[in-house]
C-alpha cells in the first residue's frame, strides 16, 4: 500500500467530506430538527446544479456565484413546498406515509423533468479554478474540490452561528423540542418551521453549485446522494451541525479509501452500507442525541 | 400475607440530564385500590410507562406477579395482565369504537382465559364493554366522531378489555362532569370487587379520596408520601408541594 496513495486518498476524502457536509446540512435541518423526511432534498441539489450549468453556459458566470444569487429563489421554493406540505399533511395529522410518498413523488418528478429537459448526457461547467491543482510535495489538492470544501465549511459555520446566536435560529432549535414553550415566547411554530425548511432548501442551491464544480452531473445523480445524505445525518446525530461535519468527513474518507483501493464500482454501496449499519447498530449516531 | 402483586424496587429513569424518576419504591397488594397523585411533571406518567413497558427503567426493577419485568416489552406485560389507559387518549383512528375494543380481546385477553375467544364471544364482549362506559350507541363510529370525554371513556374501556390483573387508569376522568366522575369511580370499584387491582392517577381529589384505600404522592420524581388517604392529605410536605392551603 503506497503511502503517497494513502495520503492523497485521505486528502480527497476530507475535501469530499467538506462538500458532503454542505449537501447534508439541508437534511440535518429538515429531518433532524423539523422531523420532515425530505428525501427529495437531492432533487433540489441537482436542480441547483442544472441552474448553475445553464447560467454558466449562457452567461459564463461562475457556478458558485450563481448559487449565491439564486439563494433567495430557492428560499422561496422551500417556503412554497413547506406550505403545501403543512396544509396537506401536518395540519391534517396524516400518517407520515403520505408525507414520504409526497417527497418521493417530488424527487421522482424533478428527476424525470430534468431528463426530459436536458437528456441523460453528463453536463459540466467551465470555471477558472476547476482544472488547477495545488501540488504540495507528493500531495495533490485539486482546486475544484478545495474551493467547495472551504465555502461549504464557511456556510456551515455561519449556519451554526445563526442557529445558536439569533432569536429565530434558537427558536428553530427549540421548535423541535418544545412547541408550547415556543408559543409562550410569542413565536409561531408554523412560521418558524417554514423559515427553517426554506433555509434547508436554500442550502441546496449552494450544494448544487458545489456538485457540478466537483463532478459532471446527469439527472439520476441525485438519487445516489440520498444514501449519503441520510447516512451522514444519522451518523452525525440528528440535530447536531458539528456532528454532521464530522460524520461527513468520516464518510468522505471511507468512500475515498474504498474507491482508491477497491475500485469505484463499489462506491455507491459504501454510503448506503454505512447507513444500514448505523441504523442497525447505532441509530442515535456517533455523538448520540 | 400473600405476596404483593406489584413491587417497584428502586426504579429510576432519566432523559438525557433530566431525572424523571429517582429511586421509586412502591408495593401494591393484590386487590388494592391505590391512588397516585402529584403535580404535573412529577413523573407519574413516566412511572406508569415504566410499569407497563412503554419505557424501560434505567435502574431498579419492576416485579409483577412474582416475575421481574425488566426487558419485557409492553405487549408482553399486557399479556401478563397489566393494562393502562393513556393520559392523552390514543385511539386507533381508522377503526370503529367496537373494533378498538376488539384489539385487546384478540391480542391480550386470550392469554388470561387460556384460549382464543370465538367470533361471537368477541362481538358480544365488545358491545358489553362499550356499554360499560356508555358508548354502546356509538359502537360503529370512528374515534374522530367522538367528543374528548367519550374518547377518554373509550380509552378506559379498551384497557378494561385487556382483562387485566392490574389496571392503571391515567387521568381517565379529566374533563368529565360530576356525575360522570361518579360513574367511572363506581365502575372502577366494581371492577376492583371482582378482583382487579387498580392504580388510579388523578388530579380530581374528590374521586381520589372516594376511591383509594392507599394514597401515594410523587413530587419531582420522588415518592414523598405513602399511606392512608387521611394520613397523606394531612402530611405537611404533601400540602406544601401539591395540595396547597
Amino acid at each position, binding site marked *: 500500500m503506497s503511502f503517497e496513495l494513502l495520503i492523497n486518498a485521505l486528502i480527497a476524502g476530507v475535501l469530499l467530506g467538506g462538500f458532503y457536509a454542505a449537501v447534508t446540512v439541508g437534511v440535518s435541518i429538515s429531518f433532524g430538527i423539523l422531523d420532515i423526511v425530505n428525501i427529495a432534498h437531492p432533487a433540489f441539489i441537482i436542480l441547483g446544479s442544472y441552474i448553475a450549468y445553464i447560467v454558466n453556459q449562457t452567461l459564463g458566470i461562475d457556478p458558485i456565484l450563481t448559487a449565491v444569487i439564486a439563494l433567495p429563489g430557492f428560499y422561496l421554493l422551500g417556503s412554497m413546498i413547506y406550505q403545501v406540505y403543512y396544509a396537506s399533511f401536518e395540519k391534517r395529522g396524516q400518517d407520515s406515509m403520505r408525507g414520504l*410518498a409526497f417527497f418521493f413523488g417530488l424527487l421522482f418528478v424533478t428527476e424525470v423533468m430534468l431528463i426530459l429537459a436536458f437528456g441523460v448526457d453528463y453536463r459540466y461547467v467551465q470555471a477558472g479554478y476547476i482544472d488547477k491543482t495545488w501540488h504540495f510535495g507528493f500531495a495533490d489538492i485539486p482546486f475544484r474540490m478545495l474551493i467547495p470544501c472551504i465555502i461549504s465549511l464557511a456556510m456551515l459555520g455561519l449556519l451554526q452561528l445563526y442557529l445558536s446566536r439569533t432569536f429565530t435560529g434558537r427558536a428553530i432549535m427549540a421548535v423541535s423540542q418544545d412547541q408550547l414553550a415556543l408559543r409562550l415566547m410569542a413565536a409561531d411554530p408554523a412560521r418558524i418551521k417554514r423559515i427553517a425548511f426554506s433555509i434547508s432548501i436554500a442550502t441546496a442551491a449552494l450544494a448544487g453549485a458545489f456538485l457540478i464544480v466537483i463532478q459532471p452531473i446527469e439527472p439520476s445523480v441525485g438519487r445516489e446522494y440520498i444514501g449519503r445524505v441520510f447516512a451522514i445525518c444519522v451518523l452525525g446525530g440528528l440535530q447536531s451541525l458539528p456532528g454532521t461535519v464530522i460524520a461527513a468527513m468520516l464518510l468522505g474518507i471511507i468512500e475515498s479509501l474504498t474507491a482508491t483501493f477497491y475500485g469505484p464500482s463499489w462506491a455507491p454501496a459504501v454510503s448506503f452500507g454505512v447507513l444500514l449499519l448505523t441504523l442497525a447498530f447505532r441509530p442515535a449516531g456517533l455523538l448520540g442525541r | 400475607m400473600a405476596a404483593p402483586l406489584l413491587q417497584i424496587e428502586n426504579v429510576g429513569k432519566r432523559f438525557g440530564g433530566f431525572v424523571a424518576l429517582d429511586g421509586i419504591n412502591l408495593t401494591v397488594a393484590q386487590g388494592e385500590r391505590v391512588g397516585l397523585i402529584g403535580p404535573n411533571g412529577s413523573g407519574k406518567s413516566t412511572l406508569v410507562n415504566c410499569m407497563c413497558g412503554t419505557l424501560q427503567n434505567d435502574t431498579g426493577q419492576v416485579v409483577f406477579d412474582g416475575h421481574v419485568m425488566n426487558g419485557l416489552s409492553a405487549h408482553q406485560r399486557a399479556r401478563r395482565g397489566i393494562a393502562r389507559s393513556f393520559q392523552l387518549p390514543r385511539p386507533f383512528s381508522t377503526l370503529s369504537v367496537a373494533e378498538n375494543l376488539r384489539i385487546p380481546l384478540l391480542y391480550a385477553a386470550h392469554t388470561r382465559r387460556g384460549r382464543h375467544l370465538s367470533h361471537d364471544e368477541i362481538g358480544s364482549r365488545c358491545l358489553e364493554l362499550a356499554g360499560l362506559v356508555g358508548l354502546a350507541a356509538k359502537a360503529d363510529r370512528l374515534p374522530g366522531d367522538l367528543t374528548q370525554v367519550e374518547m377518554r371513556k373509550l380509552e378506559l374501556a379498551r384497557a378494561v378489555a385487556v382483562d387485566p390483573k392490574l389496571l392503571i387508569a391515567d387521568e381517565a376522568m379529566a374533563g368529565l362532569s360530576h356525575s360522570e366522575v361518579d360513574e367511572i369511580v363506581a365502575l372502577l370499584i366494581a371492577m376492583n370487587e371482582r378482583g382487579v387491582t387498580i392504580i388510579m392517577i388523578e388530579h380530581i381529589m374528590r374521586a381520589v379520596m372516594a376511591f383509594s384505600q392507599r394514597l401515594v404522592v410523587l413530587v419531582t420524581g420522588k415518592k414523598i408520601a405513602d399511606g392512608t388517604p387521611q394520613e397523606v392529605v394531612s402530611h405537611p410536605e404533601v400540602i406544601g408541594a401539591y395540595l396547597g392551603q
Partner: protein
Amino acid sequence: MRSLIFYIASILIGAVLFGFARWLGNDYLFFAGYTVLQFVVLATAWNILGGYCGYVNFGSAAFFAAGAYSSVTLHKLGTNIDRYFPDSLAGLAHAILPLPVPVLVVIGGIVAGLIGLGTGYLTLRLRGAFFAIATLALAVVLQTLIVNWDFVGGSRGAYIIRPAEVPVIGPYIQYLFLVMLILAIVAIITARTIEQSRLGYGFATIRDDETAAEACGVPTLRVKLIATTVSGALMGMAGAPFPYYIGYLEPGSAFGLAYTVNSIAMPMIGGTTSWVGPLVGALLLGILQQIATVTISSAVNLLIVGLLLVGFVIIAPKGIVGLVKDFMRERGPEGSTPTWRTRLAAFANMRPGAR
C-alpha cells in the same frame, strides 16, 4: 362462506380472462397483460406493508430484482451443471435443473422474503421513516452487489434462452402470462385473507398507533416482520419469471426505478385501505402506461405517474377507492336499512367494521 365465493369468483374471472386472451390470439396482448399483472402483484404486495401497516418501502425494485436474479442464478447453474457441480451431485442436478418457472417463483419468493425479514429485523425497531430510508439503501447496496457479481453477468447482464413453446398451452408467452395471472390471484387472496384476519387488525393498529397497539397486547415487532416478509416475498415472486419474459437481464432494468415508483403510486392512487385499491391502481395505471409507451416516450410516461402520485397524495389521499367509498356510503339515519350501495361497499370490504 363469503371467502369461498371470493376464491371461486377470482378463479373464474382469471379463467375467463385467459380464455378470452387466447381467443383473441394477439401475442401483444399477452406481453402487455403480463406487465399489467406484474404490477398488480407488486402493488398488492407493497400495500400489505405500506397501506395496511403504514411502513413505506422505497426498495420494491430490490425485492423484485432479488427474485429475478435468483432465477438467473439457478438458470446459470442449470445450464452449466458439469462446471459447477461435483460428479456426485451432477446426476441429481441434471434431473432437477433447469427448474420450471413455478418452482423458480417459489424460490424467488423465499429469497426475497428472507431479505425482507433481514431488513425488517435490522431497522423495524426504529421509526417508520428510518425503515423507509433503509429500504432505499437496500436497493442501492443490492444493485451494487449484483453489478460486481460476475456469475450472474454483472453489469454486462445475462441471457436467458427460453423455449418457444410449452406442452398443452402453446406459445411460451402465454405460459408466462398464466403464471403471472395465477400469482396475481394468489397475491390478492393473500391480501384479502390478511385483511379479514386477526393479523389484519394488528396491521391496522400499527398503522394507527404503535404504542397503543403494544399496550393492547399486539406484538408489534413480530407483526411488522410478518408484513415485511410477506410483502417482500410477493415482490420476489413477481420478479422470478422476469428474466424468462425479457430474455436478457441486466441490473439497470432489474432494479429499474419504474418498479419502485409504480409499486408506490398504484396503491396510493388506487387506495390503500383494502386489496381493491392496489388492483384498481395497477389496472388503471398499468393499462394507461402500456398505451402511453406506444404513443409517447417512457420518460413522459413515468412523469405522468409521478405527477399523479403527488397530486393524489395531496388532494385525494384516500385514493380512487376512497373517493368511490365517500360517494357510496351515504350517511343515512342511525340503523337505516342497507341500500345496494352500502351492501356493495361492504362486500368489497371498503367500510371499517364490515367484516
